[in-house]
C-alpha cells in the first residue's frame, strides 16, 4: 500500500478511524479510572444501595462546566466518570465534524451539506431537545 502515501491529502478513512479509536480508548480509560477511585476513595455522601442511588438521583450529570472541572481536579470519582462519559458522547460528534471538514477540503459540496445536516441534528438534540426534557 505504498501508493497511498504519495497522496498529500489525508485519507478520510484513516482520520475517521483514528477519531473513533482514540475517542473510545480515552473515554474507557477515564471511566475505568473513575470507577477505581470510587472503590478506593468513596465520597462521604455515597448511597449504600442502588434504590437509594436512584431515589436521590445521586451523581445526576452536571451541566456546569466549571463544577465538572473542579470536581475532576479534586479527583471526585463521580465527576471523573462524567468526564469519561462526555468524551465518549463527543466521539461520534467529532467524527461527523471531522467528515464535514474533510469533504470541504475535497470540495464535495453535496456531502458537506449532508454531513453538516447530521451535525446540526446532533447539536439540536444537545442544545434544544435535551434542555427541554431536563426542564420538564
Amino acid at each position: 500500500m505504498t501508493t497511498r502515501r504519495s497522496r498529500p491529502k489525508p485519507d478520510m478513512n484513516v482520520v475517521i478511524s483514528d477519531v473513533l479509536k482514540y475517542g473510545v480508548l480515552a473515554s474507557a480509560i477515564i471511566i475505568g479510572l473513575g470507577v477505581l477511585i470510587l472503590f478506593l476513595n468513596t465520597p462521604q455522601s455515597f448511597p449504600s444501595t442502588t434504590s437509594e442511588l436512584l431515589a436521590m438521583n445521586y451523581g445526576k450529570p452536571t451541566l456546569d462546566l466549571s463544577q465538572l472541572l473542579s470536581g475532576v481536579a479534586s479527583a471526585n470519582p463521580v465527576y471523573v466518570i462524567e468526564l469519561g462519559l462526555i468524551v465518549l458522547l463527543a466521539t461520534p460528534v467529532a467524527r461527523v465534524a471531522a467528515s464535514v471538514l474533510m469533504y470541504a477540503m475535497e470540495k464535495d459540496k453535496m456531502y458537506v451539506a449532508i454531513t453538516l445536516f447530521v451535525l446540526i441534528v446532533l447539536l439540536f438534540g444537545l442544545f434544544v431537545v435535551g434542555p427541554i426534557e431536563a426542564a420538564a
Partner: protein
Amino acid sequence: MTGIFEYIVLMLLVSVIAGLIGALVGVGGGILVVPALTLLFGIPIQYAIGASIVSVIATSSGSAAAYVRDHITNLRIGMFLEIGSTCGAILGAVASISLVRSGYSWTVFLIFGAMLIVSAYSSAVRLRKERKMGSEIINQRPNRVSERLRLSGEYYDNATKKTVGYIADRVYPAFGVMFVAGVLSALLGVGGGVLKVVGLDSYMKLPFKVSTTTSNFMIGVTAAASTTIYYIGGFVNPILAAPVAIGVLIGAFSGTKVLVRTRPGPLRWLFVAVLIIIAIEMVHEGLP
C-alpha cells in the same frame, strides 16, 4: 440487601457476559443489557436505557474504527442514511421519555419483547444463510438516485479473491427503514443493527460484509443523537453507566476475538433460544 459496591461488580460481570453473547450472536450488547438491568437488578427502565445506550456508542465506535480503516465500510452510504437515523433517534428519545413520564413504561417493555423476537428470527435466518455461502444478491444495476448521491463502491472479497463492485438499490425505502431504526434505537436504548442491516442488505442489496460494517458505523452517531437527550435529561446515571459501558466493551471485544478463531454454530442456536426466553420475560414484565 446487597450493598452498592457488590451491585457495581455484579453489573460489570453481567455486562461482560451481555457484550460477549451479543458479539457471538451478531446482535449488539444493548439488546441484553436493558433486560439484565431491569429484570435482574430491578432498575427502572429509563435508567436501564440510559446506561445501555452509552455502551452502544462505545462498542459500535470501537469496532467501526477497524472496518473504516480497511475501506470495507461505505462512508457515503453511511453518512447519507444517518440523516434519517439521527432524526428518528431524536423522535424516539422524546417518545420514550414521554411514555415513561406518563406512566406507560409497560409499552416500552412490550415493544422491547417484540424487537427481541424479530432479532432472534433474523439471527436464525442469518445462521442458515451462512451455511450456504455465495447466495447473496448484490445490485450492480445503476439507478438515478444512487448515481446522483454517488452511493456505490467496491470491496475486496477475501473468500473469492475478487473485487466486487456494487450500487445502492432502492435508496428511498432504505432511508425510511433507517428512520424507523433510529426511532427504535432511541426508544429502547439499543443499537438497532438488525433493522439497519435489513435496510442495507434487503433494500440497497449491498454485499453482506459492507451492510454489516456500514450499519455498525451508523450506530454510534445514531446512538449519540439520543444519548445527549438522555444525558441532559438526567437519565444517564454515571454510577450505573460506568460498569455497563466498560463491561460491554470488554465482552464485545473478547467475543469478536473468539469469533475469528471459531465458528460457534450450535452455540449460536442456543443464544437464539436465549433471546426468545428473554423476550417472553420482558413481555411478562410489561403486562399488568
